[in-house]
């Protein structure tokens, strides 16, 4: 996209335009083949009665919006939507909050800071399946390390994964832990880009630490904040493996989100059309948030330019 812009408007420079298109072509082809086509196929599938048999025979009768109607009428729909919202919001708020606090902490230079910071990246490097499995052990009601700690401080054992009330907080906690490094890294980078002289000037004017953060750091960090939150939202809303490994959507659907439910509809109930429909609902939601972000980003840019 950016390559097309610098082409001069004056004069018909055909070969220049051709070159621009030639550069663009691989990217366009990639997007069409690996995003456009599967997306379109998913939309088509969601309007078909796609069963196990369809895989072999290729026959899947068109049923219009029946799959969407079935999904909406399913009592699990509201559960999955609510869980997805809680999971996404809960993860985002704490990932970002803790990530920001750590980024501010590490913005100051002190001995061992760089080493500590790289250690904090560990959750990011582990395969999600490994993190999930380890958290599952830690959450174990009778022998998990979390409850061993809670007993030590006199609080009773928490039924982390075996109660419908605690399971969702437990998977959110796992996902927060996984997401902190990403927030830390990007926000840390954003902080480093703020000139130290601004802080020094504010300090000379008598601003305390909180005032410097509130009136210097925070406003200047806003563009980075927007990107972190947006990417975090898109990552979180589609989280599948963490939930699958830690709870499998249970107990009693307490941690069923749109992604795990879509998988279950497709590969447990073999209602592939309905599974695709749920997937599309999720894509729509993510797209809506993406558009919102683009609009606000444009506004920020216009503000900055003015």
């Amino acid at each position: 996209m950016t390559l097309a812009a610098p082409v001069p408007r004056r004069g018909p420079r055909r070969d220049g335009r051709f070159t621009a298109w030639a550069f663009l072509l691989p990217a366009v082809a990639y997007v069409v083949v690996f995003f456009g086509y599967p997306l379109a196929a998913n939309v088509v599938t969601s309007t078909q009665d796609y069963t196990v048999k369809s895989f072999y025979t290729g026959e899947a009768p068109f049923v219009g919006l029946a799959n969407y109607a079935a999904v909406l009428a399913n009592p699990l729909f509201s559960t999955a939507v609510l869980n997805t919202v809680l999971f996404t919001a809960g993860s985002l708020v704490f990932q970002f909050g803790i990530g920001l606090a750590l980024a501010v902490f590490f913005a100051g230079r002190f001995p061992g800071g760089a080493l500590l910071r790289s250690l904090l990246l560990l959750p990011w490097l582990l395969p999600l399946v490994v993190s999930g499995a380890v958290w599952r052990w830690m959450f174990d009601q009778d022998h998990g390390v979390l409850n061993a700690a809670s007993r030590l401080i006199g609080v009773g054992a928490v039924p982390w994964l075996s109660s419908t009330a605690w399971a969702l907080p437990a998977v959110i906690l796992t996902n927060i832990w996984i997401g902190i490094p990403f927030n830390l890294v990007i926000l840390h980078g954003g902080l480093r880009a703020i000139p130290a002289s601004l802080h020094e000037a504010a300090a000379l004017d008598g601003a305390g630490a909180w005032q410097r953060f509130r009136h210097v750091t925070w406003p200047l960090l806003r563009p980075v904040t927007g990107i972190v939150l947006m990417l975090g939202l898109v990552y979180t809303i589609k989280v599948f493996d963490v939930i699958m490994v830690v709870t499998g959507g249970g107990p009693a659907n307490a941690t069923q989100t749109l992604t795990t439910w879509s998988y279950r509809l497709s590969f447990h109930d073999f209602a592939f059309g309905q599974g695709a429909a749920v997937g599309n609902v999720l894509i729509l939601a993510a797209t809506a948030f993406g558009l919102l972000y683009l609009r606000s980003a444009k506004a920020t840019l216009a503000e900055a330019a003015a």
Partner: protein
Amino acid sequence: MSAARRALLLVASAALLTACSPTAPPASNAPAATSITELDYYADEQGSAAWQKVLDACAAQTGIRIERRTVPTAQMLPKILQGASSKTLPDLLFTDNPTLQQVAATGALTPLSDYGISADGYYPGIVKAGTYRDKLYGVAPGVNGLALIYNKDLLTAAGVRPPSTWDELTAAAAGLTGDGKYGLAFSAISSEEGTWQFLPFFWSNGAELSRLDSPQSTQALAYVTGLVTSGSASKSVVTWNQNDVADQFVAGNAAMMVNGSWNLARLDEQKSLHYGVVPIPVPKAGAKPVVALGGEVGAVPVTGGPTQQAAGKVLTCVLAEPTMLQWSKAHAYVPSKTAVAAKFGAEQPAMRAFVDEVGSARSRTTELGEKYPKVSQALADAIQASLTGKLPADQALKTAQQAAGS
């Protein structure tokens, strides 16, 4: 269209299906194939090694080279569907018996009568599991089921005898609970595994899968729920799969467990652990326990002439008495032919309870066929809702019946 279908799978489970599909060579017109591809899910070390020996023996015997592929259990069906849509099915596959109906329904399998394999001499339950619309599509070299495995030392110390009825099980589990130990462990995870562990209680009490909210069914679920609410079994059963249950038992955290014969070899490795096996306790004394029939069935997909015949030959070899016995011994399965099983039970005392139960075991798909997975999922949800105290047993099962019926 096959590309479109592959794309659907990519979207639906990109993470799970990134492995490339097996590319079986297209069937040529050559008179006999000398090599075939085989797919199974024996991914655990011990089971995989035992299965490899069976295949090696049959490769030597038939002169057919067997190219083996193994996937994790959960990926078996997606893998088969992917193969069906891209016409790259393996020549021979061994899959969990309840999935056979799904695969047979696609039209991707060949009747075993094509290769001279008949149902004679097999346990009726396993024949039913492998039969789709009156034709036999899959047979197992060995079957398995669930029994009650107990820690002899803990029971002796507590002065408790291995239970045979529900009342005895309740009393025994309560008597063995304490000191951070639970009397009983079982799996009630939110998948087929949870349903499979509940079915012995469900069926032994006279309930039927076609009506999940019957009084017999409610009574069975209320009974199992009682074991958890009374504290005789851990609340964590809703998160344990059967391997976790075996871990708890081996660690001495549970005095008794509901588990399958395939775990016995693992228990044998623990020299300090002395265990015994009895059939699953029944509601009333004198009744026969009805467990669900487990194990993998061999099937031959439609892949074209010569390789199909070769796969048929290998399957015939796997089902022959010597290989059947070899497999059953190595992986603690019950031979699926009644006569072979009787011989086997006489030789292996630890397996006797399992052998006894197979006679009355039921196939999960006999009643419902292709509808089984949906009903099984609904039942697993009901079990979890009841065990976590979200809903009382009767309401949980009413909800399940509605979900299964829709």
